[in-house]
């Protein structure tokens, strides 16, 4: 590496710094950054292989410290990269529990294709699991996060949502600022998604 202000591992570290500092739920997948880190890893690896084989034949240990340093840098890059992917995966999982099975349209472009696929697969496994528990009846594990106090709750609409059909076929119009007395279990997802507000 030539003498620039960037040190080995700095680009990889920046990936994580941006991820931590971003005010968004999940910032856009940094294709370019990831590619640069992969290139750096490859370059370090190739140089090290060349010098290590030279060392094998000559026994000259004078480049040992350089090899050592570069190897640590390679490991560092790898760690940052994996941590970047892992942290994003954690956030994507959390999104399933908090937003529901559909990724909000303005967040979706931030994910790369494999991440969208991961979300969908995760969502499917979770749904399959939830259907399988509870004596074949299924349990919605994303609901009733606190012990429920009553079957019905009083809610106020925060935004114009439109028609909402209850399990018994009754249709309610959810208009901004309108108030309703509805079955807790059925409207909980709407409250969690910020469409309704639980008032009593």
């Amino acid at each position, binding site marked *: *590496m*030539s*003498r620039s202000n960037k*040190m080995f*591992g700095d680009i990889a*570290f920046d990936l*994580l710094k941006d*991820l*931590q500092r971003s*005010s*968004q*739920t999940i910032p856009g997948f940094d294709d370019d950054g990831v590619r640069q880190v992969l290139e750096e890893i490859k370059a370090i690896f190739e140089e090290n292989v060349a010098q290590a084989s030279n060392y094998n034949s000559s026994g000259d240990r*004078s*480049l040992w*410290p*350089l090899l*050592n*340093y570069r190897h*640590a840098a390679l*490991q*560092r890059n790898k*760690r940052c990269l*994996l*941590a970047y992917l*892992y*942290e994003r995966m954690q956030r994507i999982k959390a*999104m399933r*529990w*908090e*937003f*529901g*099975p*559909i990724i*909000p*349209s*303005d*967040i979706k472009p931030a994910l790369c294709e494999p991440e969208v696929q991961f979300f969908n697969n995760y969502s499917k496994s979770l749904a399959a699991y*939830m*259907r399988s528990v509870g004596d074949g009846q299924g349990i*919605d594990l*994303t*609901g009733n*996060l*606190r012990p*429920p*106090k009553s079957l019905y*709750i009083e809610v106020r609409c925060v*935004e*114009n*949502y*439109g028609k909402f059909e209850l399990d018994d076929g009754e249709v309610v119009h959810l208009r*901004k600022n309108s108030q309703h007395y509805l079955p*807790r279990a059925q409207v*909980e*997802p709407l*409250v*969690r*998604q*910020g469409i309704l507000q*639980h008032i009593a």
Partner: protein
Amino acid sequence: MMNYFPNYYSIEDIFVTQEKVECKVNTRLQRLGFLDAGAETEDLEPGRTINLPLWYIKELKVNNAYFTIAVPDIYKNVHKAVCEAETTHIELGRLHPYFYEFGRYLTPYDRNHVIGRIIFETLRQRVRHLLDISKNDGDTKHEHRLDNIESKLHEAGVRTNTLYINWLQMSGNHIRTSQLVEEHQKKRKRADRSDDEGDNETDTPTSKKRSTM
């Protein structure tokens, strides 16, 4: 919130290990000159002092022949306060954002064997203070007072206290908007407001068939 145990994927730990440590070069190191910003030579010359990232240092043996690690003064500076059990007033965050974890990594390189003891005693003495401030002034920011580990503990304490207060006010059982959704909405609104063409309500009646499962 989870407790913090640094592991391979821990971003916190990656941040800590990004910190630079001052080292003295002991011997000529071929083609490592790029590590020395002030030198124009290809090799790293003995006697030079350079800053190296912790992620590299921690791979070196304590008694390696290449570098001597200089332990930063911040730990020596709190020594007296620790001995006198007067650590609560120290602005730990100002001394170092990762006072404890950085110290933990440097412990093996400290020939006086005090850093380990200092971080252990400092936290031991400050837990009471953390419990108190989480209970009594949850809203005030303590950025300079607390290091990263302490801020995390403080957050956990404040959260417990908020839940308790909500419960006392009988609102503990209300269903609330998911945290992620809430943050997301706030940002969307802020973005909407800063939009210049923000004419009438852009309340998009998003996809109507939001199923539950």
